[in-house]
């Protein structure tokens, strides 16, 4: 980790994300409302996918718990209604997920491979059915109405969550904590014997990634207006970040972002154009994508870029 090199790399590459950010931030001024709504959804997927990648990318622990963390955020928001200001609700939602992740992480991160995968998936279903039972049998009701919030406001908050997430991600990647995380992914035993408190590093990263999922959930609840356990803890949402990250390519930081953005947009595009065939088309695209782009979109782009530069070399 040559620090000088890292810094120089950053300053010259910083303008691009900044430009995009300014562009996105100014979008509500000119773009139609629905574009804002769609972008909010897309950014929700990006936030979930990137925060998933934050933990699962370097460590190689495939977590299927996103739906649980997202759902905890959603439910926090639903429980609190709008008695508190929105930023506070987002913060509490994130914090609730953070705490859950700390607990679950401390309990389960000794599991490896498929066992961890299945445990995290079980968590989603357990929470779903437990909350359902709790509401029906203890509180005697189910489902909650969440007051709606201005769409533009939701968009800006989602953008802010995204920016904070990216900032957190960059900070972690550049730090010794990030180095330890990467080491854990490559060889956990060796990392432990090199003095890294592997459990702590894993659990904390797991919890940080859960924080962002929970925050996104708390925010999105205001868009859904009505919440019940089956809606909040939708198991499909656990698979989405995995699929999106693989689709985009996990080799690079921007892979999951592109993957999530295109995946989410494609789905919306197909569902509105071909309501009766969209699953067929979507499924076919997924199968073709995985066969022809084993390293995801990023891999494909790289290959294209490589062949084009090679072509240029050949010409000169």
């Amino acid at each position, binding site marked *: *980790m040559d620090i000088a090199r890292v810094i120089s790399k950053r300053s010259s590459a910083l303008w691009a994300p900044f430009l995009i950010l300014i562009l996105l931030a100014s979008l509500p001024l000119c773009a139609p409302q629905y574009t804002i709504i769609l972008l909010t959804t897309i950014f929700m997927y990006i936030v979930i996918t990137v925060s998933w990648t934050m933990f699962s990318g370097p460590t190689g622990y495939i977590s299927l718990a996103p739906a649980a963390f997202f759902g905890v955020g959603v439910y926090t928001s639903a429980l609190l209604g709008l008695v508190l200001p929105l930023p506070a609700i987002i913060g509490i939602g994130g914090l609730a997920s953070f705490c859950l992740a700390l607990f679950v992480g401390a309990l389960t991160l000794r599991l490896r491979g498929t066992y961890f995968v299945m445990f995290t998936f079980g968590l989603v279903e357990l929470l779903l059915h437990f909350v359902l039972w709790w509401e029906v049998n203890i509180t005697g009701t189910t489902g909650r109405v969440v007051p709606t919030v201005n769409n533009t406001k939701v968009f800006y908050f989602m953008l802010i969550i995204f920016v904070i997430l990216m900032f957190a991600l960059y900070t972690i990647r550049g730090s010794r904590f990030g180095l330890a995380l990467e080491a854990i992914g490559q*060889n956990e*035993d060796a990392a*432990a014997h*090199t*003095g890294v*408190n592997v459990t702590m590093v894993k659990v904390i990263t797991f919890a940080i990634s859960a924080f962002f999922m929970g925050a996104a959930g708390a925010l999105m609840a205001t868009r859904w207006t009505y919440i019940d356990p089956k809606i909040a803890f939708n198991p499909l949402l656990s698979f989405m970040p995995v699929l999106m990250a693989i689709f985009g390519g996990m080799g690079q930081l921007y892979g999951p972002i592109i993957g999530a953005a295109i995946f989410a947009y494609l789905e919306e595009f197909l569902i509105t154009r071909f309501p009766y065939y969209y699953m067929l088309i979507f499924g076919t695209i997924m199968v073709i994508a995985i066969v022809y782009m084993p390293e995801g979109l990023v891999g494909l782009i790289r290959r294209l870029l490589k062949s084009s530069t090679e072509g240029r070399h050949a010409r000169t």
Partner: protein
Amino acid sequence: MPVLEGKGLTKYFGGLVAVSNVDLHVDEGEIVGLIGPNGAGKTTLFNLISGALPLRSGTILFKGQKISGLKPYEICRRGVARTFQSIKVFPDMSALQNVLLGSYFGVSPGMSSMEALREAKEILEFMGLSASSATRARDLTLASQKRLEVARALATKPQLLLIDEMMAGLNPTEVAQAIELVSSIRKNGITIIMIEHVMKAIMNVCERIIVLHHGQKIAEGTPQEIVSSETVIKVYLGERARAAS
């Protein structure tokens, strides 16, 4: 005063005894060799010392303090570092990053980035790996990877270093270099326990040898005592050794 002291170390895997009631002590500045056929429990013993596996019974003292029961990272931070039989470098990290991790998280965590970087570079230099400091670990040769593992272990600033089969798979030239390296590490005041199959290396560098068989310590002594021990020849070295000696 012994740096490391183990009493009645025992470990079972399922119903099988892996290490059975082994006592051992290592004095400061020593190089101790650990030999025995495969499955004798050598690596298991290392795993017990470094905290990778919990003990079934027995205690391990390091500099008079109990370390059995501690987590691997805690033991490492107290000054016990190790390498692995099957290489466990971080394959997609550069050699420098591999070593840097040791500096960051070893005996003295919390040192500044600049200091850690300087130290890591020094260690790479010492191990003769400066030239490949930016190379990804997976692209290094086998011998260099083994060195890198030792470098990473050294970066944690240990007082006791456990080396597990550093010579296996190296050619004689590389073996000679490795032997030299082990001696120079010792010169820096680090106590060493090494598991080795390459007899030549063991005989050359070790002052004392412990022989394990079926999880039990069957012999202990100077290299000369070991090669002439009846028990060792019978269970381990075989007739050929007898003929040769």
